[in-house]
């Protein structure tokens, strides 16, 4: 017969050193339950279910987006001006996409394909090639790959990798 009462950990167990986190969690649950019970007769269905489109913000600073009011100009307080500069830099970093680009997207794409496209198109071609073509190219590209791989003793004086 399943009982409705949730199993609770005894105080002795909760006081153990390794149970501190659980103890805090249990205490919070108890607290929540108590406050729910306390206000349950005050809350009505509307308060629980209504979702409003309004957010209340009591601060003018946040509403109007006011800046910090501590300012220094023309070297009056160098320490403060350094802080202001840092803040400005951070702000500009956040809005970097608005800055004009040195290289347009068009140029970037062209440069990218000039450098990268051979490799990319090769990869894609490989995907659509027939098996016959594939084997042919493979033998053309590096005929040595047919050779059985074997261990080569590295030269001691040289760390350049030599294929031949």
């Amino acid at each position, binding site marked *: 017969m399943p009982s409705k009462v949730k199993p609770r950990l005894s105080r002795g167990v909760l006081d153990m050193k390794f149970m501190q986190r659980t103890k805090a969690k249990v205490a919070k649950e108890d607290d929540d339950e108590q406050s729910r019970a306390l206000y349950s007769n005050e809350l009505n269905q509307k308060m629980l279910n209504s979702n409003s489109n309004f957010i209340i913000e009591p601060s003018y600073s946040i509403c109007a987006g*006011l*800046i910090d009011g501590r*300012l220094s100009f023309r070297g009056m307080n160098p320490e403060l001006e350094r802080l202001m500069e840092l803040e400005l830099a951070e702000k500009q970093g956040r809005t970097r996409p608005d800055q004009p680009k040195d290289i347009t997207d068009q140029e970037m794409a062209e440069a990218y394909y000039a450098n990268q496209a051979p490799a990319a198109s090769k990869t894609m071609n490989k995907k659509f090639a027939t098996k016959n073509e594939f084997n042919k190219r493979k033998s053309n590209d590096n005929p040595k790959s047919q050779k059985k791989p074997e261990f080569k003793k590295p030269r001691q004086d040289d760390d350049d990798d030599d294929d031949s």
Partner: protein
Amino acid sequence: MSTNTSIIMPGERVTIVEDAAKSKRIILGPGLRRVDEKVVATKAGPLRHKEPNTFWVDNYQRRYVPARGDLIIGIVKARAGDLYRVDIGAADLASISYLAFEAATKKNRPDLNPGDLLYARVLNANADIEPELVCVNSNGKRGKLGVLQDGFFFKCSLNLGRLLLRESCPALAALTEELPYEIAVGVNGRIWVKAHSTRETVGLANAIMTLEQAGYAEIEKICGNLSGVMQA
């Protein structure tokens, strides 16, 4: 920020906001209150809107209402055990722990005396408990916060403080052309300025105070005349 502003009065329904709320989430700032699905103004003044979805009322006010995250200037009033009581222009004195300063420990207390000026952040703002301030950021660093030494301090309306702190405000840039200076503007309507000489400092303060009644539209024109004000 939209330029076509409409003045709204307390109790008035703000249909512009209600219409906007049908399609997206809306942030209601100070001076606007939601009553079920209606939006009602609680303060008198121009309705401001910031893209994409923020609305608030920019009313004229001199009493500061603490809000979490605001940067304010406070005056140390007294020391009470582990706390300092700080006047921030709100209904109640704020408190700041002696540990809420950079590199402060129980042994190494900050040297604060009644009358000192603090540039601090509001950590905790609740109608039922007194506001709490800090002078460090979440990393324990001082940043721009802390005690303000020397200089000249004056009070103004909350609007002037906010006016100066708008990102596009030309006033501070116009003053920079006149002289090097340092300034702290609290959104609680308190301003502290410091320049190289007393004469310059007072001129600077006067120049800022002439902006008190300026709207967003006139400010450009006044900024052109600021140098004249400073000579006087």
